[in-house]
């Protein structure tokens, strides 16, 4: 066992992927000497060289567009987008090319490209540095979308994403980069596209992913004092969703609260609510409730504590669910 921060877990996962497969290349802005603005790629260029850890020009469409070409040549590019709000110059390449290439080619051209995006707020940043755009990618057929929430998943999931033959949008909870956990690198990880029950409970299912997993766990601890037994699920995979794990849980709790930082309107919570309603209607004791960011642009950072779901807002939703 080694104690690693989430950022270091990613770093070790990337290192392992590069050792295992010489076709893995990392590309992005400042990923080389600097090691990325969050130091996730720290030391990799020194050990693997400039041809495999590529400092790119400051042009995100170029990062993803050239990654597509590298993938066609047999490489497994891992692109770093520096911040969530900067992915949009690359959005065209991701949606019109990366997501569609395998289908367009009738299966002849795999697209093993991983796009790492630090996402979410809570770090007091200026505009465009705190967003949660995951639903945009989940809505795009041809992409797979995952979010890690802790050091162990960071280490394993990034390797699994890189090994996948489909494009994976890999969301990293930037405000949790410095959270630590024991990582047993020798264990066998769960499959990439599975959710995980991280706290069993009987009363309400609370679904979260990325940075909100810790918030949900804190809420579950607090709820104990009120005599409520929450079951917390880390969704981990946002597209495709692992509805088997979700439905199993909701069928025994009868109640479901979905938590995310992204705005509620047409977000992951809406999709989960619709599916739970379709497939577990008779198990539900209450409507599926959502605790999300508001349907506004992300606010100035002095307001972000009001914007972001926190322990109390989760508990408020739990109470509303139990009151039905």
């Amino acid at each position, binding site marked *: 066992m080694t104690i690693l921060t989430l950022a270091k877990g990613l770093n070790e996962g990337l290192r392992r992927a590069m050792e295992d497969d010489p076709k893995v290349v990392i590309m992005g802005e400042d990923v080389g000497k600097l090691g990325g603005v969050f130091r996730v790629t720290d030391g990799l260029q020194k050990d693997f060289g400039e041809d495999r850890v590529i400092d790119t020009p400051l042009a995100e469409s170029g990062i993803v567009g050239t990654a597509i*070409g590298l993938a066609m040549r047999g490489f497994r590019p891992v692109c770093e987008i520096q911040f969530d709000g900067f992915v949009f110059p690359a959005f065209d390449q991701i949606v019109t090319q990366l997501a569609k290439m395998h289908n367009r080619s009738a299966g002849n051209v795999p697209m093993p490209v991983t796009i790492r995006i630090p996402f979410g707020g809570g770090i007091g940043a200026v505009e465009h540095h705190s967003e949660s755009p995951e639903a945009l990618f989940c809505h795009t057929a041809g992409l797979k979308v995952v979010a890690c929430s802790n050091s162990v998943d960071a280490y394993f999931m990034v390797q699994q994403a890189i090994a996948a033959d489909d494009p994976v949008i890999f969301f990293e909870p930037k405000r949790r980069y410095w959270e630590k956990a024991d990582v047993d690198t020798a264990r066998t990880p769960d499959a990439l596209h599975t959710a995980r029950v991280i706290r069993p409970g009987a009363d309400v299912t609370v679904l979260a992913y990325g940075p909100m997993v810790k918030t949900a766990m804190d809420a579950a601890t607090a709820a104990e004092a009120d005599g409520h037994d929450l079951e917390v699920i880390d969704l981990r995979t946002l597209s495709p969703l692992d509805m088997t794990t979700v439905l199993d849980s909701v069928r025994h709790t009868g109640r479901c609260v979905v938590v995310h930082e992204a705005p509620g309107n047409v977000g992951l919570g809406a999709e989960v609510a619709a599916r739970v309603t379709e497939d577990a209607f008779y198990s539900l004791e209450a409507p599926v409730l959502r605790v999300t960011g508001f349907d506004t642009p992300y606010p100035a950072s002095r307001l972000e504590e009001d914007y972001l779901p926190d322990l109390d807002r989760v508990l408020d939703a739990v109470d509303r669910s139990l009151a039905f």
Partner: protein
Amino acid sequence: MGIGDSFVTAGDLDAERLTTINPDPESVQLLTPEGERVEHPDYEISLSDAEYCGLYRDLVMVRRIDVEATALQRQGELGIWASLLGQEAAQVGSGRAMAPDDMAFPTYREHGVAWCRDVDPLVLLGLFRGTNLGGWDPRAHNFGLYTIVIGSQTLHATGYAMGIQRDGGENAVIAYFGDGASSQGDVNEAFVYAAVYNAPVIFFCQNNQWAISEPLDRQTRIPLYRRASGFGFPGVRVDGNDVLAVYAVTKAALDDARSGQGPRLIEAYTYRMGAHTTSDDPTRYRLAAELEAWRLKDPLERMRSFLYKQQLAEKSFFDDLDAEADDLARNLRRACREMPDPRPLEMFAHAYSDTPPLLAEQRDRFGTYLGSFAEEVAR
């Protein structure tokens, strides 16, 4: 002063355009529009008689496929067709300059390059008929899939070239694009990436003067080939209707790229003789006189004159070629009409390399739903 007084009139613009299509002294030419061989200090070409005849055959076949496809669209067999009429020399010259291992990334109009890369014309028709989205294996032909979002493929080509630099390949890449695409951010980003990494990629711009209805002066204030110097690599303009010049210039550029000299920009100065696609009506925005001026520069006619004047081919060669082209067109027409529609559940097959459980569930439900109609009919 009236509202329109400060504007140049449409008539003035058209007159100005007619002067800009006069022979450009900076443009590389090896064959005049009359079919006379001329020399150029930097580029030479020396092919066998059979190779000259082969280039002419390519031009004829490619045009015949294009004419047939336009007819098939008019008859309702294709949803749309993007004609390459007038651009045959730019495509055949560059396509034949490639070595087998070189990789090409096309737009959606590179039917002539597809021909050079042995892509079955029927598969191309399938895309425009709506039976596939591309569907050929890029690796089998070293020819990428048609790309409809303007300019996207130039970045793919650059990335592919960066891959060649990393795996020790000795090949080079051609990125095809048009004058309209030169305004796209992706094309400019591709120039930056290719330049800073010194990637072995040739940016081959077919300047056909029109981006649907927008003339070249809506894309640029300087000749496009000169854009390259701002990015730090050489650019050259070639007479795009001269198959020999295009061949020579492209071959030299590919050789340079393969030997580690980095990217090149080639501007093939040509003209889109047809509409943008079969859905377009160019009479709304351009004059017939412009078309007539370019008709005198036809890429097939000048090569035909060259073969005659140099006595490289007998009359029987031309007769046989016409018969071969007609045969190809006849077979293509028949095969196109017989091309089956894909089956509904096939749309689920390649969305991912595997089919995720929820998608499989959606597919199966739809299959059951479709099946219910058959049951109803049986009842």
